[in-house]
């Protein structure tokens, strides 16, 4: 079978390349290379990235068996491994509150772990052991469905650049102090927290992603923030809380992010920003803001419209704007304050760089149409304006089109695309 004269093609490549190749294989295949030939016996053992999931073991309907074999596989792999482990990822729904995970984390904490990703199952949440806080070289931490309780002596992860906590049970003070004590933190993602009130102080933070029920977010010290994506789920309690709050949310959130380039807001973001709006002139101009995406903007609420206007009129370099509406057609037919657009609307602003506008879920209510008219009239560089009507609106579409035809366009090359589903 083997041609004695044919040279071995691959075993003599540098170890770094072999590791690159083995890293791209599922861990099971990588470990199996140990029986290929004598040279390959331990090539896998120095891999610095170990990614475990349920594909490592033979699946079966017996959960206990799968859990058992997964635990054994991981334990043995770690035991046979040589050298530092820089990345450890475990994604499984099978291991609930397994004491072996504690042991693995202890082992990893002694092996210079840099990136740790734990995505565990839906059952009882895994309580992160204290040895995790001894991982001094940690640069990335992703925890899904865990309990996180830093000891009082914890001084922070000094090398941490990326933190992602998803459905993690942790006290707000702990999160705040964790964020503040990681001076190099660049990317922060917090999702599915209940009623979190948070002040974020992260001088190096560049990417922020928030999703969940947030009571109060204040970006106090985030001068380098480049991209932000926020989804706020409002419950009645939170809405009530907002009624009583005194601060201006817009300022608290967008007051000190001069370097912002991308802003994405989902669900109630504009509503959140509209609360406590002081309507004053923003001290900050978003010179770098290029892409704005706001979802579920309610064009019946004058305050929300003002938030949008405030945002885009202070962004001289805005290139792309995407807005999805959420208006209740019936309620908005007799819209108040329609004269706003003629009287108070800033008429001296020009969106010199705005090239692409996408309006989705449009119901054709008066304020929406006025807004579109406003954009068309003040965007000399516009190339594409695409409008997608809301699926529930069937009769009003013709009226929308008729109105659209009348609008003056500042840009001669502007294309208006009306997208039917």
């Amino acid at each position, binding site marked *: *079978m*083997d*041609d004695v004269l*044919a*040279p*071995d*093609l*691959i*075993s003599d*490549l*540098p170890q*770094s*390349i072999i590791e*690159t*190749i*083995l890293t*791209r*294989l*599922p861990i*099971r*295949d990588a*470990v*199996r*290379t*140990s*029986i*290929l*030939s*004598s*040279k*390959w*016996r331990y090539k896998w053992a120095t891999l610095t990235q170990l990614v475990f999931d349920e594909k*490592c*073991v*033979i*699946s*079966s*309907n017996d959960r206990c068996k799968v859990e058992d*074999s997964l635990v*054994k*596989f991981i334990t*043995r*792999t770690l035991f*046979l491994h040589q050298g530092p482990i820089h990345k450890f990822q475990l994604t499984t729904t099978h291991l609930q509150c397994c004491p072996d995970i504690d042991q693995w984390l202890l082992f990893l904490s002694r092996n210079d772990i840099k990136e740790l990703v734990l995505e565990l199952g839906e059952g009882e949440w895994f309580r992160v052991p204290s040895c995790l806080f001894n991982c001094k070289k940690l640069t990335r931490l992703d925890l899904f469905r865990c309990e996180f309780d830093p000891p009082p002596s914890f001084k922070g992860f000094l090398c941490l650049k990326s933190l992602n906590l998803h459905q993690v049970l942790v006290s707000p003070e702990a999160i705040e102090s964790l964020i503040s004590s990681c001076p190099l933190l660049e990317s922060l993602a917090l999702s599915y927290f209940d009623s979190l009130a948070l002040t974020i102080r992260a001088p190096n933070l560049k990417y922020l992603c928030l999703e969940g029920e947030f009571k109060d977010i204040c970006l106090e010290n985030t001068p380098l923030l480049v991209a932000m994506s926020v989804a706020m789920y409002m419950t009645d309690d939170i809405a009530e809380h907002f009624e009583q709050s005194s601060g201006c949310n817009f300022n608290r959130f967008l007051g000190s992010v001069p370097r912002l380039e991308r802003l994405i807001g989902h669900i109630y973001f504009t509503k959140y920003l509209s609360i406590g709006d002081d309507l004053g002139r923003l001290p900050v101009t978003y010179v770098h803001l290029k892409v704005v995406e706001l979802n579920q903007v309610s064009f019946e609420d004058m305050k929300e419209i003002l938030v949008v206007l405030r945002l885009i009129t202070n962004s001289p370099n805005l290139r792309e704007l995407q807005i999805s509406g959420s208006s209740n057609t019936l309620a908005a037919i007799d819209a108040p304050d329609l004269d706003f657009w003629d009287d108070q609307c800033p008429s001296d602003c020009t969106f010199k760089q705005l090239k692409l506008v996408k309006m989705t879920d449009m119901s054709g209510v008066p304020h929406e149409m006025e807004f579109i008219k406003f954009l068309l009239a003040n965007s000399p560089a516009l190339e594409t304006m695409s409008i997608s009507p809301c699926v529930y609106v069937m009769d009003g579409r013709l009226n929308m089109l008729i109105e659209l035809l009348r609008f003056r366009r500042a840009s001669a090359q502007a294309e208006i695309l009306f997208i039917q589903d």
Partner: protein
Amino acid sequence: MSEVDMAVTKPEMMKSYIWLQTADGSIQQVEQEVAMFCPMICHEVIQKGLGSSKNYAISLPQRVNPAMLSLILDYCRFHQVPGRSNKERKSFDEKFIRMDTKRLCELTSAADSLQLKPLVDLTSRALARIIEGKSPEEIREIFHLPDDLTEEEKLEPLKNTTDDPRIRLLNRLYAKKRKELKERQKLKNVEVEEERVDDRSVDDLLSFINGDGGDSKGIKTSKSKKKNRRRKDQQKSTSTNEAIKNHNKELNGLNSVCCSVEIGQKSWSGVGASSNLHDVEDDIFASKNELDDGEIDDEIDPALKEKIDREVEDFARRLNSDWPERMQEILSFGHERKPVHFSLNGNGSLRRYASM
């Protein structure tokens, strides 16, 4: 401007070239922007000022032969153009990567020596795709890997990192096989010894020749001597002792050999396969020895006994010849889906096959 004119009249002046020399001595010139895409060449030009003329050509590392160099330069020529979209680049990469495995490995090596990381990543990904999901034999064949793990090493308990039940079974079979190999060695020695040394005392021989009633005693003595020696040699293998006991007990019975064969057949599908294999072989030796010593039992028809012996030998031979194939089968982790014992269906659930 008149750049175009100048380009027509003196192209060498407008476009800079870098001179490269491959390990085989051939020198070629390459457009500067293309060559500078390789960090190693870039370094040589900037740090050492090489490559500006034929005499000062940059010597490329040995792993870069002219064929590989031309491939790498094609890659650089495409990617160094700044205006390309990601989609274009991806599509180029997909097409570029289509080559035979040998060239792919050479290209990886060459790209690595020129420190061209994006190309190394691309080729590594392609090689990983080739390796993924294949059996060890297939991988060895593709990459011409020597199957040079010694029998011993292969028989070393495979670190069962996948906890594959087949590997556990395999480990146990290997353990038995190892023992068996050792036993066979020792038995061979024993046999050799026995042939050399007929330690029956002169008295015994005399009494046998003279047809004394004492011959049964003599026979018993020599039998027990053999028994003892064997016992000493095979202290580890309790099952073989059992077999001996069985054999010696039922020496007069027709069943003895058939029994072991039956046992062998029944438990071949189980774990104790090779131990019974051993039993069977043991029986062969035992019966041979018995015959050699002339202690033929009168109660068994010699012809029938011979027939039985032949059957046993056949069976043992079959088992032995099957073994390497079975090893391969088991080692190939069920890719051929032959029903050894366990098999994975499409969903990966285990199905146990009835024992053969």
